[in-house]
């Protein structure tokens, strides 16, 4: 499942899959602008059929945060 998540992040950020890890975020990925961050959240919601809360959306600083919040919504990501 992590692959599915990484694929989506790589696609939205337009970066190679290999450059994504749990620590990836706006500081490490140049394309990860605040606007791309909104787009990512919106496409994550579509892909995993979840709705993040406003607090969760605001809390996302890196991939690990996304994993944690997806997990809270019952999405299991196996490494």
């Amino acid at each position: 499942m992590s692959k599915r998540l990484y694929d989506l992040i790589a696609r939205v950020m337009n970066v190679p899959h290999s450059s994504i890890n749990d620590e990836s975020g706006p500081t490490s990925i140049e394309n990860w602008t605040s606007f791309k961050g909104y787009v990512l959240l919106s496409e994550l919601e579509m892909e995993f059929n979840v709705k993040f809360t406003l607090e969760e959306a605001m809390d996302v600083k890196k991939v690990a945060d996304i994993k944690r919040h997806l997990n809270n919504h019952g999405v299991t990501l196996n490494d």
Partner: protein
Amino acid sequence: MTDQKKLSHYLNRVAEIAGQAFEKKIRIALLGSFTLNGLAETLSVMCAEKNIQCTTYVADYNQYNQEILNTESNLYKFFPDVSFLLIDSRTILGDLFYYPYSISKKERKQFVDKKIDEIQKLIHIFDKKINSKLVINNFNIPTFSPYGIVETKTDFGQHQMITELNRRLANLFLNSNSIFIYDFNNFVSKYGEKNIFDDKQFLFGDMKISLDYIPYFANDLLSYIIGYLGISKKCIVLDLDNTLWGGIVGEDGFSGIKLGPEPPGNAYVEFQRVLLSLYQKGIILAINSKNNYEDAIKVIKEHPYMILREDHLASLRINWTDKISNMKEIANELNIGLDSIVFLDDDPVNREYMKINLPQVLTVDLPKDSSQYAEVIKSMNEFSVLNITQEDRQRGKMYTEQRKRKELEKSTPDLERFLKQLDLKISIKNANEFTIPRISQLTLKTNQFNLTTKRYQETDIKKFSQDQNYVVGCAQVEDKFGDNGITSAFIVRKENPKEWFIDTFLLSCRIMGREVEKGILGYILNKAKENGVERIKAQFIPSHKNKPIEDFLPKCGFQKEGDFWIYSMKSSFVIPECLTVCVE
């Protein structure tokens, strides 16, 4: 068409299209009362997919008033072809968005007056300052009302107030050729308020249109670009079996096909109704079907539930010839480019074959479910035009008449005799408020019999027509089968008292091959002579489509002089006998 790609697709693709060359160009300005992030990128990529290079200017957030009022603004320096002024309901209504009942009914009415006045003044300034089309949205009516179920019992309540605002806005620009109202309220109805507005995105990032729906929104705005550039599709070519009716007539028989008031036959009736509505706005319909002609034509002529009849169909290719040859013949017969054609066929193999062999044709993927056929057509923006002229409404009928003319032509092998039998009458008309939209439309759409292929918007034609140094006119062509409408246009510039220059000379493909062009040229030459002109200068600018007019000037006695063609008034020009030319 119904399914859009995600926003990230467009955001990422925009870098790939940068620097690529495209056939058409457009400059788009986006002015918004809210964040328009992603819209310019999406529009640019959608344009690129239609071979249009789109250059965009996005005004700063909520700076639309300043941009329009400041005559030195970057907006005006950008010289947009089309500008979109996008204002959301929260901005226009201010506090009344939340508290509509904090003021009286009278004050709500005054509020509408004030807002309409503000918009009108703002747009007036824009319209006077720049030669750009302006598209302004109307306002969505929120489903929530603090009055709840009593909202509909409230005199000039919030919903009525916004309805009135929208009605007045539409009326303000009903007859304008440069200002258009984008029905944003309709957009919200189509996709649903809960989808278009996402409170989390609004509160988190001030996004007033949900990011998921930016591509749908851009697709709607693209309609104006298609209309502006005059690249809308002209013709729908249809398969028959399992497309216009269910089943295969050759196997299931006349009474065995599915077409009628009961499901699943009603899906095909519904589909045909939508096609007929497009026919009535000027889209040409034609058939390209592998079938026994007798079987199929019997259904078209006699089936009680057929909506589309023979008279609606400009060309019928019902045979066992391959669909590619048929398609080429249809384009040839109707005198339209393959890139003006949309092809609808239920069979994915036929579609693939068409896509590979004739990529210029827009082959639409019909869904497996026939109940969705009508929706596919309804969601297409490829038929968008900025105005619908009388000629458009009559087009279908004219093409049927054309089919009958061709039948006469076939039975009269001598061209001269055929033309005489047609009783051709050409009425020359000046550019005026009734003919200007059509003249502009002809310059935008005519490719084949067009000397210079110069594209002019209505404002350009209007400007020429008011200039003493120009002669701008058009011609209506009638014959014994009917009225072809205004099918020719010309723009002549008076270079000096002795020399006139033909800037534009064109003829719709509908009336090519009937010597009409000589009648119109004869009129121009006679008028020049009456004015003491000694030389007419003309130019042929080759395009990849205007070969049919290549020999026109030398055939009419023009002599080559450098890049130009010159007609000396000393020569005498004879208008063919088969034509009657009158001036209105």
